């Protein structure tokens, strides 16, 4: 386990030193959400109804923007080969790197979301539920994203390909992430079931992502 934690800590350090990743994701998130009221007009009822959807879609797109970085720099400078020679199986390496990605991208985006919700007239009372849903749902973004990031590693300018591969996998997270909030806003109750499905999707991603991603990395390193 020591090697696992050392890898996570190193990835966190590198992410903060290189700066780019976190800034890009947060900046993009902020800009997309800030544009929405300008585009949709000052109808507060409409905005608060759309707020969960806008926040989730913006969050997915911002996270997508930072996905290629998960393996790219380590692959390009040869560090991934050295790490692969270490004591960890490639699956655990993927888990470590996806965890670091979630901590540096997913988590900051989630914490920013309720603040940006104010721009969309999101009811403050539903902020805790929003954060809960996003914390439960965002691990799926990093772990399913790891598959796409590994598959498109050698493709130059892989952004579009990555989006095509990964966005369909994010649909369940998007649907149940939004339904958790709309249920509460419309007072139809039942946020609990949505949260449970969100967790299930994340757990599923936690298992499938590393296996598929490690297989892709093996093929890429041939």
């Amino acid at each position, binding site marked *: 386990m020591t090697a696992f934690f050392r890898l996570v800590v190193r990835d966190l350090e590198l992410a903060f030193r290189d700066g780019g990743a976190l800034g890009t994701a947060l900046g993009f998130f902020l800009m997309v959400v800030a544009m929405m009221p300008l585009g949709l007009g000052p109808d507060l009822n409409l905005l608060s109804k759309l707020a969960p959807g806008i926040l989730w879609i913006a969050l997915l797109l911002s996270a997508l923007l930072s996905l290629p970085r998960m393996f790219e720099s380590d692959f390009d400078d040869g560090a991934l080969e050295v790490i692969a020679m*270490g004591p960890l199986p490639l699956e655990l390496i993927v888990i470590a790197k996806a965890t670091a990605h979630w901590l540096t991208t997913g988590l900051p985006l989630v914490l920013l979301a309720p603040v940006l919700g104010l721009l969309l007239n999101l009811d403050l009372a539903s902020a805790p539920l929003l954060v809960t849903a996003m914390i439960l749902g965002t691990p799926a973004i990093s772990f399913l994203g790891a598959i796409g990031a590994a598959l498109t590693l050698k493709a130059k300018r892989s952004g579009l390909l990555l989006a095509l591969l990964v966005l369909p996998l994010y649909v369940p997270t998007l649907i149940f992430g939004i339904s958790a909030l709309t249920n509460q806003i419309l007072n139809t109750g039942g946020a609990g079931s949505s949260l449970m499905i969100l967790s299930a999707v994340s757990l599923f991603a936690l298992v499938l992502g590393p296996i598929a991603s490690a297989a892709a990395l093996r093929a890429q390193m041939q």
Partner: protein
Amino acid sequence: MAAASHPGQEFCGKPPLLILSTRTSETFLILSIENLCVTRGERPIIDGLSFNVGSGEALVVMGANGSGKTTLLRALAGFIQPKSGAILLDGHSEDARISDACHYVGHLNAIKTSQTVAENLSFYAGFLDDTLSQAEISDRVEDALARFALDRLASVPSGYLSAGQKRRLALARVLCAARPIWLLDEPTTSLDQESTTQLASVINAHVASGGVAIAATHLDLGVGPARTLQLDQKARSA
């Protein structure tokens, strides 16, 4: 022959990982390659190659550009799955985890430019051998840096290093975690004469203590008594 004296069944299901990492100097280790065939795409690169390397031996793999030196080392490191043939360590087929016994220094230096020289090495030391304590890691790193004359640059961000210094930093990695087999791909790239001599002495010391070094090169390394494996381009032109 401590490793070979264990009954073979003990390794079933579990690769002899511990035996390799706790290897003492008396342990005798043989890496044998039997009738190895490696293809890239449809093209055969290595065809029917067999050789043995044992503890205390340095093997220099020579050959023209494109003769398969890198492919051979990557196959040994476990990155490329051979089409046929076997890579055996002490007689055991464990192609999946043979990489636990190897250091691989490829064409790429695996250096993080935003970390300092010492930070780069500390991570690899602690990661490749996760039994090391923090104090042991800094000892090893200090020693490795001194051996490659990088000690004065320890706290410099590695992005500022020259190409030769970066190469030395990559090579210093092999001293950070104890592993019996070193796979070095063109280790002398961009090294000056003095550093090449340093590298040769490091390799000689490793071999003298019972290790195995396999280096692909087309220049003379100046390593003590070394066997040479000549990869032939003719073998696969047809």
